[in-house]
């Protein structure tokens, strides 16, 4: 089995109030030095076989049309990472 990871993040220009709330909490926890926090989604996909070009193309298609919303989100597909 091969693990393929899809990370989905809000586009930089889309406001992320959850990230801002986390940043606010860091201040209350007494943590300094953090300028910004943005929250996203992390999908771990186990393929039956190898990460062949065809299998990866399928994951890309899944990431573009289902796991992310292209209006507000960007995604990155990486192989073998966790």
């Amino acid at each position, binding site marked *: 089995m091969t693990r393929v990871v899809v990370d989905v993040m809000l586009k930089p220009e889309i406001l992320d*109030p959850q990230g801002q709330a986390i940043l606010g909490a860091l201040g209350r926890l007494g943590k300094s030095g953090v300028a910004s926090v943005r929250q996203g989604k992390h999908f771990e996909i186990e393929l039956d076989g190898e990460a062949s070009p065809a299998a990866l193309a399928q994951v890309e298609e899944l990431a573009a049309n289902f*796991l992310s919303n292209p*209006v507000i989100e960007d995604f990155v597909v990486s192989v073998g990472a966790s």
Partner: protein
Amino acid sequence: MTASVGVVTFPGSLDDRDALRAIAAAGAEPISLWHKDANLHGVDAVVLPGGFSYGDYLRCGAIARFSPVMDLIIAAAREGLPVLGICNGFQVLCEAHLLPGALTRNIDLHFQCVDQVLSIENTETAWTNGYAKDSRIVIPIKNGEGRFVASEPTLDRLEAEGRVVARYVGTSPNGSMRDIAGITNKRGNVVGLMPHPEHAIDSLTGPSSDGLTFFTSVVKALIAA
């Protein structure tokens, strides 16, 4: 002939019953549709109700958009079938790319539940033809992810083409861009609206009866067609 209007129930829909009731109150025949339906039972229009379809997993409306009945509704909407998406239904319409933009987390992260004043700006759509232009209505809004966002060029295009159907009056409850509460497609048959007209069809159960006109409008549009 009586017009029939379908209401889709997805797993997690909440407001399907009120939508069916509003359709009956408007003089049309309400028809329950199921998310797995393989045909639309001959309905003349469709309401996608509010709620939390598929538990709002992944993104609000993202999984509902791929349900079997939505394939039929998306194809029919492109042919002119009147479709109204309320709250979660609006999210489904955006996920299906029948309407531009997206609905994101409320700007203050709070779930907002209030009686909201709206201005009806487009009275040409299948769902708003019974309103007077710029009329003020009061209907409930209840959402956690109702902040309408779109790119600046998309927002400019929506405004230029008169496709903003309803706007929040006063402070927007969710931080929507340009105070947008509802939009329509170019043809005016597909409307997405964050607040809930189906919860305001009589003064016994709602803050007003202002919402009923969405449903009487579509009956009028169907009879004229």
